[in-house]
């Protein structure tokens, strides 16, 4: 079980719990505004972009190659950008804070 906090662009903070699937799916289930996951989680659309709190970067790890290609030139990219569909919900993510990019 991992507790994950999303902070939306309206500065709403929502903490949810999950134990399977990916972070995008968890966000969609919990109606997190700004995370759509339109492609269903195959790293094709970048509608699930989040900025990881820098202090949590070690927990989430860096993006994979395909993901970082999608992120590198995204207008909203930061040093700690991830596509949440590429992040598995595991106990390693317990306590992380993710700012929704869109």
């Amino acid at each position, binding site marked *: 079980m991992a507790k994950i906090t999303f902070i939306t662009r309206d500065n709403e903070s929502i903490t949810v719990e999950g134990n399977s699937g990916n972070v995008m799916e968890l966000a969609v289930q919990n109606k997190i505004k700004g995370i759509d996951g*339109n492609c*269903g989680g*195959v790293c094709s659309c970048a509608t699930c972009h989040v900025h990881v709190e820098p202090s949590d970067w070690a927990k989430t790890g860096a993006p994979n190659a*395909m993901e970082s290609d999608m992120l590198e*030139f995204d*207008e909203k990219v930061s040093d700690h950008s991830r596509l949440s569909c590429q992040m598995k919900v595991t106990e390693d993510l317990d306590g992380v804070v993710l700012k929704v990019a869109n």
Partner: protein
Amino acid sequence: MSENTTSNKICVVIGASHAGVNVAFSLRREGWEGEIILYDSDPEMPYHRPPLSKAYLSAENNSELDLLFPEQNYASENITLKLGETVSEINNEEKTITLSSGEIQLYDKLVLATGARPFIPPINGIKTASNLFPMRTFADTVSIQKAIKNSVEKRVVIIGGGYIGLETAASLKKIGAKVVVLEREERVLERVTAPEMSTFFSKLHQENGVEVLPNKNVVSIKTSEGINEVVCDDNTSYKADLIVVGVGIKVNIDLAEKAGVEIENGIKVDSSAKTSDANIYAIGDCTYHFNPHYNRFIRLESVQNAVDQAKVAALAICGNQVEYNAIPWFWSDQYDVKLQMVGLSKGYNEVIQRIELDNDKCQSVWYFKDNELLAVDAVNNGKAYVLGGRFIKGKQEIDKLKLKDVSIPIKPTSFLKD
């Protein structure tokens, strides 16, 4: 929220796929307080459609569908799902719809998200063929997988070398089928890509053991004892235990047309997704809508259009001024290749293909009309896809010589004119 309250109003949505489901959830987000009722003749909980022909079809065990939203979200957002129910008529004067059961439902606002259905061409013998399926719904994938499992020889003929045909070919190959793709035109993906892309995908399939045959116009199907023989007009024929038809779609306009809503290459809508009837909106694959960037009316078969138009319609229904203005994007997954497309290439007169130095499976095709970049097809190349989209949107002028030079890496400033 707009001038008047919506708490006692009813919004009915016909079609519960990407467009219909997203308009329902967006309506709630934008403040629609009244009832929302979603109808679909498909009995399954609304699901992601694109994975069906991709990961889903090639998976060994498919016990769970990839749902658009979990079931409890419909309840918590007070969205009523009426699945397995077919709407037979719209009465726009009474503002009611009639179900095939005869039941009548009132509406204040109606959203048509009726999508499209596979086109089954009038080929001799197609109606009596054995194990012949389209590929659009969950039920189709179940039928196809069952037929593959029950077949000893697993010979598959796919009629049509478009995205559906090629994705289905790749997926069925993965689960052990012997696959032949018959394309009527001189190359696969003829309608949607440049010859460079067609060549790439033909080769990709051949390398993976799928036969891709162009110039194959199927004229008849002969079936005997459960085995089909697919006959082409050049007198060649192919044996098939299973046939998948992927030759395009027919837009579901019948309900709208009978209700007198304006039809032109689909259900014609304005920039807020409203039809010629002020109380009826239409979204997704079924619409013929204006694209401001390309300055023309278009019809699109895509998730992007379904979702983005749904958001626009929800805003408009809730009383906001809104204009649909999106650069279309699409994707396709075949084998280990991810194809991402942005923009609309129609009308191009020049193509620049980049094959990146370190990896010939990483490439991109850039479509121009004179100096205007219209579209980019990117193969395993997210950078080209993302930047291409930015260049198109910003009407960025591109230095074509630099773009052609693969020693110059793809970066935001790489191809700017000096």
